[in-house]
């Protein structure tokens, strides 16, 4: 069933906080929701679908529904695939709306790891002690960063991807972040800055890693009828794909991500090709995440991601594929260690022509947003959405 154009993104909001001292998790969810609904020209009373992931406090969606005073819901979904959850939620909202289960779907995200002093990337974390894989992994000290580092190491081994090539991803993000007043890191950096920053887990340096930030955001997805009633700012959802990739019984390949599966599904639904995309928001937990994903999404042949991202090719106004023009997770924001929602936000801004003028892509009628959740070196959820103008 092709759902191209069966729903629109009518409102977005990115919470401005980057260090949420004195602000609770529930409050960030609710303030983000209020902001996105106001952006759409809607209110909480209009919402009949609510979507959240594991960052929402309480059991699934229940506590946040109560906190925000949602009383007209006909559909809920608390799918959690880590940072990619919110890109999946956009797709699931598209499905629910197409089936008539709801017509105004609210998606929220919030996190405050920075205020809580969390060593996100370098401290071992056991997500669920009863997960069947935990005993065979946790004893060896896997952290977020050393897992992605193993992917980078293998990619280097198979394809010759260098530290300097990875660094170009961060350089491009920093060029964009200088224009974002809310970005955590606004200083433009060079390839030398990245490769000379402290080694965290070979071959990833400190500047290959995303920021640890607080914050949140929200997205309002609506039916074509509701979109029409709200004016002409709504962005059409043209295609969606989702996938879970895992270690497959021990026959592993960590040089590609689930984007190799979710991307083609989204392109097929949208009826477009990678070369048609004018702007891409690509999950950037680490520089290697971007290099692998760019290959997976067909922007270059497998193994050539390192060369593709080099020499400013991801910088708006310079390169062939402007990416993460808000500064992305590497420089702007990675709320709650879950960067999928903010990827959708900047893609919507680009299609609306509301990105910062210094990074706005000319005639941006087709944009892509991609989320990665979990770990590219073990099991991950991947999701791709393709967005276009209302007349697309």
């Amino acid at each position: 069933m092709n759902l191209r154009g069966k729903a629109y993104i009518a409102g977005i909001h990115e919470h401005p906080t980057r260090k949420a001292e004195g602000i609770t998790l529930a409050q960030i969810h609710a303030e983000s929701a209020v902001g996105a609904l106001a952006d759409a020209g809607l209110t909480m009373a209009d919402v009949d679908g609510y979507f959240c992931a594991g960052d929402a406090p309480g059991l699934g969606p229940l506590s946040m529904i109560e906190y925000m005073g949602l009383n007209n819901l006909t559909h809920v979904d608390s799918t959690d695939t880590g940072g990619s959850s919110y890109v999946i939620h956009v797709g699931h909202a598209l499905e629910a709306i197409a089936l008539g289960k709801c017509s105004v779907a609210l998606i929220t995200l919030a996190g405050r790891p920075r205020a809580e002093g969390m060593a996100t990337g370098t401290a071992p974390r056991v997500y669920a002690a009863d997960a069947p894989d935990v005993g065979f992994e946790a004893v060896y000290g896997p952290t977020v960063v050393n897992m992605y580092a193993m992917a980078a190491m293998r990619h280097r081994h198979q394809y010759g991807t260098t530290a300097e090539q990875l660094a170009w991803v961060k350089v491009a993000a920093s060029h964009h972040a200088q224009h974002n007043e809310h970005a955590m890191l606004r200083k433009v950096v060079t390839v030398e800055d990245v490769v000379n920053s402290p080694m965290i887990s070979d071959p990833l340096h400190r500047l290959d890693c995303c920021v640890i930030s607080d914050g949140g955001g929200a997205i309002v997805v609506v039916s074509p009828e509701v979109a029409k009633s709200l004016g002409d700012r709504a962005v059409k959802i043209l295609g969606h794909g989702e996938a879970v990739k895992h270690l497959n019984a021990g026959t592993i390949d960590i040089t590609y991500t689930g984007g190799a599966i979710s991307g083609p599904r989204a392109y097929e639904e949208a009826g477009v090709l990678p070369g048609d995309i004018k702007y891409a928001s690509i999950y950037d937990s680490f520089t290697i995440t971007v290099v692998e994903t760019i290959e997976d999404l067909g922007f270059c042949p497998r193994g050539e991601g390192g060369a593709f991202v080099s020499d400013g090719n991801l910088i708006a106004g310079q390169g062939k594929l402007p990416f993460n023009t808000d500064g992305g997770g590497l420089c702007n924001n990675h709320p709650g260690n879950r960067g999928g929602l903010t990827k959708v936000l900047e893609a919507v801004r680009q299609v609306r022509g509301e990105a910062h003028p210094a990074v706005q892509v000319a005639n941006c009628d087709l944009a892509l947003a991609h989320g990665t959740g979990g770990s590219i070196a073990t099991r991950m959820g991947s999701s791709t959405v393709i967005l276009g103008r209302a007349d697309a």
Partner: protein
Amino acid sequence: MSAAKTYMDPPINDESRAYWDGANDGKLLLKRCGDCGKTHFYPRVVCPHCQSSATEWYEASGDGTVYSYSVMRRSEIPFVIAYVTLAEGVTMMTNIVDCDPDAVAIDQAVKVTFKDSEGGQSIPMFTPA
């Protein structure tokens, strides 16, 4: 002098107990399916290849090669995390120990060894062959 690296106790359940008991006996155990004949990792009762519950334990050779690795520097004691592809064909997460971390390389031949966890459970690790 800094203390030696310590290892957490693995959570053990009814499906994994034999694996950890085997490690305490100095054996790296794998699971093979009695129906489809394929080995899988991590070991489980239900075969992920054919969904049969007729899976059986057997002892691995202990030989493998490094598929990928990383030296974790942001740790009180830097350590090498790795994926090792066993001679039996499956790849497992592990640590490379008892060697210079900077001398580890992809495709390097390694063999199983064992380290005790804080609670005395033996854990399979690998060291250069």
